[in-house]
């Protein structure tokens, strides 16, 4: 096996090829419901991390599914897929949402920010990302993208939160490793309070 072909690249390649196949299959079935007023189109534009992406989206598709399996943005994790863990947290118009429990069709004309969009173009990490590293936030790391997005949402709304406010803001994100205090330390550090 080619040592340069990482697991991540392999997954992305598989996703890209299946999108091409899937996007062709649904065109005919979609036209049946368009006769009703309010029926949704399948080919839609999404604003993700400041870029406009044209995607073929099923009516019932969740944002987490679109991000991971249509756009190959696997930074957004699917943990429970039930809105009960927070691993899939993304920002929509700067407000934290569970991407697993959001229909992709409901985010048209809204700005989606995922973990991939946090670092600046020159590769500098977002203050929250850097603070989480400095405070040893991630252990297994699975919940980290969601924790980071919840923290970013909080700091956009409240740049100098108290520790209790941070605790409330991150309460919709479960950490199986129990690194909650580390993440809270990270939020305090990212907001320049430690």
């Amino acid at each position, binding site marked *: 096996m080619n040592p340069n072909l990482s697991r991540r690249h392999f997954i992305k390649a598989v996703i890209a090829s299946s999108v091409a196949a899937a996007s062709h299959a649904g065109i005919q079935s979609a036209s049946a419901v368009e006769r*009703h007023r309010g029926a949704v189109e399948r080919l839609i534009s999404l604003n993700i991390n400041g870029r406009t992406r044209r995607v073929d989206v099923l009516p019932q*598709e969740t944002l987490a599914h679109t991000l991971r399996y249509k756009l190959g943005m696997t930074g957004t994790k699917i943990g429970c897929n039930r809105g009960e863990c927070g691993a899939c947290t993304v920002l929509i118009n700067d407000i934290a949402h*569970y991407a697993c429990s959001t229909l992709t069709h409901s985010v048209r004309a809204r700005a989606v920010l995922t973990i991939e969009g946090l670092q600046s173009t020159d590769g500098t990490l977002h203050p929250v990302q850097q603070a989480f590293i400095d405070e040893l936030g991630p252990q297994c790391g699975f919940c980290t993208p969601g924790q980071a997005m919840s923290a970013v949402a909080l700091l956009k709304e409240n740049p100098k939160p108290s520790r209790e406010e941070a605790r409330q803001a991150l309460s919709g994100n479960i950490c199986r490793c129990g690194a909650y205090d580390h993440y809270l330390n990270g939020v305090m550090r990212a907001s320049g309070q430690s």
Partner: protein
Amino acid sequence: MPSYDVMPDVPLFQPAEIGDALNLVEQFGKGGWVLGGGQDTYGWLKDRAKQPTALIDLNGIEALHGIRQTDDGLEIGATTTLREIIANPLIKRDYELLASAASRVASPQIRNVGTLGGNVGQDARCWYYRRGLACYRAGGNLCYADSPQGMNREHALFDASRCVAVSPSDTATALVALQATMIARSVNGRREIAAEDFFVGPATHITNMTSLEPDEILTAVRIPSHWAGSRFYFEKVADRDVWDFALVSIAVVMTMDGDTITNSRFVCGGVACTPYRLHDVENAARGRTLSDESGDALAALASQGAKPLNYNHFKIPLMENLVRRAMRG
């Protein structure tokens, strides 16, 4: 039971006008599933436990969204999010009870999208029912929770009839206490329903927790000024502070003359299939002052008539203690 990563194939409608939405619910009838924040929807669909024929997303309809002052109180559009209710200065000032209740719902991300209409319209959380078993509530002919081996620590103390599930909504208790009115619309017209009549128990309707008809949409909730700025108490006891539904919750409104209670409403969540009024407590509270002695006297009345199941006896002292805490000076 199989669980799926992906949602089933369901057509989605995102009408921009209330008229279009009403036509859609009329057209699809029982198969039409009205979507607010969707947080009580996607689990049903992913589990294939309910199979609607169409999703009708109301969030694009501007007329259903927002908080307005009326001649007599407030009108809250059905798709107003819990986040907006918690942050609203008018609600904070006059109806803080509702903001407290809304702030205890689920988790921050769910409150960010969860709507008032969805919160009061959500379905029972009995795990047997949610699992897709053919229980009474699902149209079958037995109750799994109220059986010798049934796990029923979260189930009802009062008013069970075949089904023993409880009302899961935190805002419902506050709205019943505040004597809110629910506005429902269909293609045939408009109906105003007192919050207390909006929530129905299994004796009235075994497969539906509200009095909404399949062709109706809840469009708004009106809160009268009657209790504005009175003394409020809300408390929810749950296993975890986040996500979990109430084991028992209490919403209390009181008008005072000095230190004396002139009028009050006590409503418990998590103990019956609907928000449960404590009429005896309300009657006995009149003329009393807020004190530990009053609390002890009223607590004894709170749980009268309770019929506990195998595992939910603990809810009786929980209810009584919540009444005590509401009466602290």
